[in-house]
């Protein structure tokens, strides 16, 4: 784990009309580390992620990738940096099949933009196999025919197929059963072991304490603090989520008492 974070946000702000969704949020994640992002509904977790992914442009603040300042204007920019996101709503096209969704927006093609179907199908097979996704009967069936867990697997597989550096998962287990949640959590750990920087959003503190190295708490669009998993308790996190005070306000200690 190097000292420079792979991805770092400093003082990020974002508003929608009169709603200040994020104010001066700091956030970071290192290679080989799982950073959890937690907070109540509406705290701004998905908004942070979409700012990083280039879906929203930030109003203020800076983004650093491997210590260098970067501007992310769109999803393509994020992809080029190696930032991959599994969105809360999965962002799959129901009318397209598994292969087509895996390569959405990044189709393999030749010089005259003809699709290279065999190449895409093979790589999809490989990726799904490497993630031990075995329940999908045909990767040529539209994702509309898949179960919630299978769709989740496709969305996750899509994010890890691209030699990514940073993988961000927004509530990846919310729709899953016990066994599938287990698979996703194992995958998250494996990605970090492979040296990737992983960010996971979840409401399940039990899961988070199992996989995360550190936990960032958001409350009402502000970051309340970063906690080391080894040095904190679920109780402390819960009270930070519900009553945490932003660290940026002068005179307030970083640690929040339970």
């Amino acid at each position: 784990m190097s000292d420079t974070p792979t991805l770092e946000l400093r003082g990020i702000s974002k508003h929608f009309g009169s709603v200040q969704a994020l104010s001066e949020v700091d956030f970071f994640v290192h290679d080989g580390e799982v950073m959890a992002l937690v907070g109540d509904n509406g705290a701004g977790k998905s908004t942070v992620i979409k700012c990083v992914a280039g879906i929203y442009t930030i109003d203020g603040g800076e983004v650093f990738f491997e210590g260098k300042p970067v501007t992310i204007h769109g999803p393509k920019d994020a992809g080029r940096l190696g930032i991959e996101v599994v969105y809360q709503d999965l962002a799959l096209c129901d009318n397209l099949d598994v292969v087509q969704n895996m390569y959405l927006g990044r189709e393999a093609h030749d010089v005259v933009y003809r699709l290279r179907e065999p190449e895409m199908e093979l790589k999809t097979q490989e990726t799904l196999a490497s993630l031990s996704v075995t329940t999908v009967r045909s990767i040529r069936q539209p994702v509309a025919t898949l179960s919630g867990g299978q769709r989740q697997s496709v969305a996750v597989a899509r994010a890890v197929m691209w030699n990514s550096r940073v993988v961000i998962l927004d509530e990846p287990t919310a729709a899953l059963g016990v066994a599938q949640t287990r698979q996703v959590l194992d995958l998250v750990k494996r990605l970090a072991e492979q040296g990737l920087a992983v960010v996971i959003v979840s409401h399940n503190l039990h899961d988070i304490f199992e996989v995360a190295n550190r936990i960032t708490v958001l409350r009402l669009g502000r970051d309340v603090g970063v906690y080391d998993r080894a040095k904190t308790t679920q109780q402390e996190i819960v009270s930070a989520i519900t009553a945490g005070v932003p660290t940026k306000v002068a005179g307030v200690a970083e640690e929040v008492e339970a």
Partner: protein
Amino acid sequence: MSTAAPPEVQQVAAEEQGGLGGFLRARFEALRSGDVGSLPVIIGIVAITVFFTVKANIFFTAVNFDNLIPQMAGVTTIAIGVVFVLLIGEIDLSIGFLSGVAGVVVAELQMPGSGHDLPGLIAIALAILAGMVIGGIQGSFVAFLGVPSFVVTLAGLLAWQGVIIKALGTQGVIGIQDKQINDVANYVLAKNVGWILAIVFVVGFAGAAVGGQIKRRRAGLRAGNPILMLIRVVFWCGLAFAVVAVCNHSRGVPFAGLLIVFLTVLGTYVATRTTFGRHVYAVGGNAEAARRAGINVKLIRILVFMISGAMAALGGIIFASRLNSVDLTAGGGTILLDAISAAVIGGTSLFGGRGFVKAALFGGLIIGMISNGVDLVGYSDSTKYITTAVILLSAVTLDTVLRRRQAAAGR
């Protein structure tokens, strides 16, 4: 079945639901859950043929079929553009009068003694370009400003009708003497040329089908069952030869027929085998997902409206060519509804993301057969309007109900 995939992939997808023996079972299951494929089209064509043959003996003859092709060519061409627009989940109501504008442009540009009596092919190219630019402008309102396409193109419908009336002035009609322009709808290919084209089609089609399978096999992927592929090839090639045989029994294959088949094949290729086509389906399936995947959704929308404008223009040129003139009725009547009906009847969903370019060809055939048959039997225009309306409403209702059913079946 994902309609965005090329045929060899669709075949494999169908077979993977349960092997060759399970293929028919899989099709039956798909049918029950609302994926009816081309069944309504086939039933429609058979029913219409039987009905009009009973009513008018001349309906089911080679001569009439030979006449039908140029009659359906204009609407079919416009409908190809409609398929693309429906695939991205939008609508284009301007295509009728836009086709009329293109007719006026082409007639005006070729007019002898007007100071710009351009050669036919150049006039045609400029008219198509005009349609493309107009489509691009309308599409920009949709893509950049988010104005509903329904409203933008409804305004277009009115505006282009106004332009036609203004352009034709008090005289109200422009005759077309240019041979190249008049040939578009009226030229008939020599009989041996027709046979040669059938052979070219067969070689190309079979080559593509076999090539697709070989490519998959080489890559170590499961290739479709060769027998099923053979059936598909034999069916389409048989159809091609049958069409040429029937036409040659009369005067020969109309050039307009060659044109619509070419446009259908080209459109299918673009839709299923290029990144652009894939992005069109993606935008129609889930525009937000497409945007997050880095697809330039605005650009795709504008390009699709440009295709729609260009195809409408070409359709308008075919209409003008058929009449050897344009008049104040250009682009009006049932053209708009016929073109949209053709795309929908052929199996393109109004809800975006599902459909085939070939839907335009088969839907156009059905619409053309009704119009042709109604004329032959001697029913009035009122009958034609009501029949087309009923068929359009049925097609849209079918689409809506099946969609709900597919959703319920998790498809």
